[in-house]
């Protein structure tokens, strides 16, 4: 068993409630109800335990985390125990009063997701009237409150044509960073894959736009970009490797190595109501299951990349092959391409040739290492 390092970040899914209805939402198909949600004092204890375990950052997420009225209290507590606090929000509940209250509570950073730049299209994808305008307003309030902003632009075949304008929107909203996030096909998005998965040609056009904008906006806007798995030649190190960097707490208190892990069969994910975060992280079966490389089968077992991408995404491997121990089928080293090809064909896009994608994990910086703390 490899040495177990402390997690870098915790994704605190405060609730599955959300006024929006994005067809690619990463929440499970089986949404947890409000009455199952953890109480405020339970979250306070989790934050204490996370800080003691060596966690550095907390991402308050959901659902819509602002649907919880104790969000400000949780942010204040997280800040008091030294955690770097990030709010991941749709923005539609972020009025002047709450922007000020969150800043006063010590919030460090806000990420607002955008469905589009076009009002009608944005509202259509979000399934919420006036969403797009409210998001722009929220972004201005965030900057007005002196908080740094990341625009999370979720892209897919129905909005990729407006990617350049989405990047301009981030500049206009005075964001320091934009994350151009291709939809990841789990949960709701997997259901909608045929409607969302871009073609290879669309993807190439998008990559060219990002490269041009990165050069032009160097030093002004950081652009993070991850290509969708189905068009990649190598899988990503999902969550930086199972049980290596992140833990995710669901609204009802289950602790997962990644937000989609509940799609995997045969797991009994431990609850913060029954065990400490440290015990769950270090010694639960669920977290140890895919740690290291001893669980791997061929071609991963003897692959030189096995400690780079850790065999890819377990949820994707299971969703596409039915075997949770399988090599992620997006990997070009998987001899049998029929699974991936069928998936791409089923998505109504012609099966594209695979292209190289940068592994989403570590980016070496000399002489320090920057490590992303969001999956």
């Amino acid at each position, binding site marked *: 068993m490899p040495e177990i390092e402390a997690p870098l970040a915790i994704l605190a899914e405060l609730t599955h409630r959300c006024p929006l209805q994005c067809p690619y939402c990463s929440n499970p198909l089986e949404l947890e109800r409000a009455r199952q949600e953890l109480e405020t004092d339970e979250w306070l204890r989790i934050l204490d335990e996370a*800080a003691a375990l060596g966690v550095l*950052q907390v*991402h308050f997420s959901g659902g819509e985390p602002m649907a919880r009225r104790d969000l400000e209290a949780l942010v204040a507590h997280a800040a008091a125990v030294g955690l770097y606090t990030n709010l991941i929000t749709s923005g539609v509940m972020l009025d002047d009063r709450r922007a000020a209250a969150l800043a006063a509570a010590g919030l460090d950073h806000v990420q607002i997701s955008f469905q589009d730049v076009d009002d009608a299209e944005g509202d259509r994808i979000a399934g919420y009237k006036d969403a797009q305008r409210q998001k722009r307003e929220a972004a201005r309030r965030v900057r007005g409150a002196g908080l740094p902003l990341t625009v999370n632009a979720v892209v897919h075949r129905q909005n990729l044509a407006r990617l350049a304008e989405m990047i301009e929107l981030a500049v206009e909203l005075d964001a320091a960073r934009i994350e151009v996030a291709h939809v990841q096909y789990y949960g709701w998005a997997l259901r909608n894959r045929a409607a969302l998965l871009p073609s290879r040609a669309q993807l190439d056009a998008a990559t060219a736009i990002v490269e041009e904008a990165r050069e032009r906006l160097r030093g002004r806007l950081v652009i993070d970009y991850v290509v969708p798995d189905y068009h990649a030649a190598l899988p990503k190190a999902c969550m930086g490797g199972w049980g290596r960097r992140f833990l995710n707490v669901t609204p009802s208190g289950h602790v997962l190595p990644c937000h989609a892990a509940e799609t995997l069969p045969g797991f009994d994910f431990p609850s913060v109501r029954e065990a400490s975060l440290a015990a769950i992280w270090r010694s639960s079966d669920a977290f140890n299951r895919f740690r290291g490389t001893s669980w791997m089968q061929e071609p991963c077992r003897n692959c030189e990349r096995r400690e780079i991408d850790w065999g890819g995404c377990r949820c994707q491997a299971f969703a596409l092959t039915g075997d949770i121990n399988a090599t992620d089928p997006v990997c070009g080293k998987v001899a049998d391409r029929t699974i991936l090809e069928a998936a791409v064909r089923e998505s109504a896009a012609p099966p594209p040739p695979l292209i190289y994608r940068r592994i989403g994990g570590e980016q070496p910086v000399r*002489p*320090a*290492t920057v*490590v992303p703390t969001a999956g």
Partner: protein
Amino acid sequence: MNEGRTPPRRIDADAIPRLKPHVRLQFSEARSAWIVQAPERVLMPDDIALAVLQRCDGVASVAAIVTALASAYDAPPSEVEGDVVELLQDLAEKGIIADARD
């Protein structure tokens, strides 16, 4: 402050580096290590990067930082300068530091 508006200058000897707002250098008791906290990023500085970052106070110029480090590490300032400028330029492009003159 006009971050996100005009292209920043490149880091040179006259630059006055400071951590950007909402970036903080923090000692983690649980990890017994210095870390840099930034939006959705952490940075684990090595000893040299830490020594540089601890001097990015928005007052000292790169030239002053180089002089201080050269004497602290007993190294030729000309060599130190190249490394410090390269490190700071990289950190500026990653949104960790800014030039207080911008």
